[in-house]
């Protein structure tokens, strides 16, 4: 028993160390990239001619105010130290702490990601099963076509088109009113979330469908599926209980990756549908060159990604007893 615990302990330690290293890498990268792109907070708020209009002493005062006079290494570790103590910085634009902003934006993004993933699974898995039920037949062709369409149509086109259509012909635009949080007005919130979730979910359905189709085809040819049919189990039950169940690991992997991306915020779709999610927070932070906002938010996104991976791993264990045993 103690041996098992040691092995488990090692595994957990390893995962934590890996996660910490990943996050550190992300922090360094974002920090560097922000400094490489032209412009800073001063030019963002005062225009690119700021350096010409301001006196050198004014400029120096501003640089000192934003902390830009410090060497990058000092800036980096100053920020990182703050983050580690729970201080993600302050947005000069809003005067709010980045932590508060993130705590407001993250639930919105998580809700959107969950809705989109559900829609993606609801479209993707039945399509995959339909396609795999008769490979290279008419159903397969139809399923693959829908999958290809979902993969090819960009979100901004689908989103803008959908928004234009329903607002023009049905005079329905739930986003016209201010954004309603789920806990304040669930009805309106879900109406506002439906279209962005549909757009994202449709895009998500494509990779789920393709991964699912090939996984299902592979499982279908295995001997135990024949055993199930040989027992007299009905075709649909064979498909769900035996084939789909065994095809879940690649599907969960793909869904986990996509869900992780969604947690990074669907910048374009959030912008089109005025959803105050984490993607918009990064976008506005970038436009304003608010280093602290961008750095801290991206770090939070990276952390969510790592957590999603961890959950995916736990799901494998739930699905496959052989993973549990190894």
């Amino acid at each position: 028993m103690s041996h098992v615990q040691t092995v488990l302990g090692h595994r957990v330690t390893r995962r934590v160390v890996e996660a910490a290293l990943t996050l550190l890498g992300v922090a360094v990268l974002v920090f560097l990239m922000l400094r490489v792109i032209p412009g800073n907070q001063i030019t963002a708020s005062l225009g690119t001619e700021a350096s010409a209009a301001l006196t050198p002493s004014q400029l120096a005062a501003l640089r000192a105010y934003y902390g830009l006079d410090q060497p990058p290494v000092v800036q980096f570790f100053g920020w990182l130290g703050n983050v580690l103590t729970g201080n993600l910085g302050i947005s000069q634009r809003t005067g709010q702490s980045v932590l508060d902003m993130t705590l407001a934006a993250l639930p919105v993004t998580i809700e959107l990601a969950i809705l989109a993933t559900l829609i993606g699974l609801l479209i993707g898995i039945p399509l995959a099963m339909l396609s795999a039920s008769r490979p290279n037949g008419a159903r397969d062709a139809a399923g693959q076509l829908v999958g290809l369409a979902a993969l090819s149509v960009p979100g901004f086109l689908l989103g803008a088109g959908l928004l234009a259509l329903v607002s023009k012909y049905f005079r329905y635009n739930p986003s016209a009113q201010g954004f309603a949080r789920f806990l304040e007005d669930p009805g309106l919130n879900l109406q506002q979330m439906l279209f962005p979730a549909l757009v994202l979910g449709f895009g998500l359905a494509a990779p789920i469908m393709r991964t699912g189709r090939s996984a299902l085809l592979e499982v279908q040819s295995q001997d135990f599926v024949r055993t199930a049919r040989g027992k007299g189990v009905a075709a649909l039950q064979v498909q769900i209980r035996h084939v789909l169940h065994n095809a879940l690991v690649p599907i969960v992997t793909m869904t986990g990756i996509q869900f992780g991306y969604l947690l990074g915020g669907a910048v374009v779709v959030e912008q089109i549908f005025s959803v105050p999610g984490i993607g918009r927070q990064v976008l506005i932070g970038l436009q304003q060159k608010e280093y602290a906002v961008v750095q801290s938010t991206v770090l939070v996104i990276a952390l969510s990604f790592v957590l999603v991976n961890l959950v995916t791993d736990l799901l494998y264990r739930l699905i496959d007893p052989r993973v549990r045993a190894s």
Partner: protein
Amino acid sequence: MGGPALLEVEDLAVAARSRRGDLEIVHGVGLQLGPGETVAVVGETGSGKSLTMLALMRLLSPPLGITRGRVTFDGRDLTALPERDMRELRGSQMAMVYQDPMTSLNPLMRIGAQVAEAMTAHGVAKSEAQRRSLELLARVEIPDPERTARSYPHEFSGGMRQRAVIAIALAMRPKLLIADEPTTALDVTIQQQILALVNELRRELGMATIWVTHDLGVVARLVDRVVVMYAGHVVENAPVDQLFHAPQHPYTRSLLAALPNPADDSRPALVQIPGRPPLPTDVVEGCPFRPRCDQAREACRVRPTLQPRSAGSAACWVPPAEWRP
């Protein structure tokens, strides 16, 4: 046997279908089986015996399919049966034990649930199926059924898995059991146990049984009749004693000669049949065994049909009396 046959297969052909035409692999196989009778289907790997059995159960997957023939089971033609009725027969009236126990169980499902499913699929209530699955596991001599029912296949050895597969096959007490090389993938010591177990259960339940094997020696003591297949054809069909003592087809004689016999010092330790069986894509004019046959004549350029030979039948133009030594 007398009385109506339980299973009657006539001119059954299986082919791989494609847009460019069918590639026939099993060429019109015939077979009869009375209730409770036991038959061995013997042939080399690739002779079409497993495909024939899957065709009987209508378990072939595309592109493979039945292209011709009739399978009458218990008075009904299975080739014409709607899939829904066929599903009801599968597992309840006719059941199969497969070749490779390592792959024929669902790796994500508990053993007990897989056995119980064979009953719930035929309308047995879940609690009843669970109770009976424990009895079945005990009957196939799996120790501690309460615990093993909760195990997953990967926690089982090959022999134990095959016992579970047998429990699944017997769950509804079928009239016909098809054992498709059930011991090929197992250790020699386990092989005998599994053979003995299936034989015992067969007798207990009075099931008609088809043993599929490439090893005549394995089933000699277990069966009433032997059907010998070669390259998708039945070449001989005879009671087991006649087949062993007076084979009517040169291929059967070669198979018997290839059986190792430690008691006979005059023979070489291992006898081989020269050449290899034809592939479905090979075109063989006349008798399919002709290229490898030491008795081939001019007449063999015409394909022989099955002809009565004492208590059996054989597809050979040359009677044993005329065989060269």
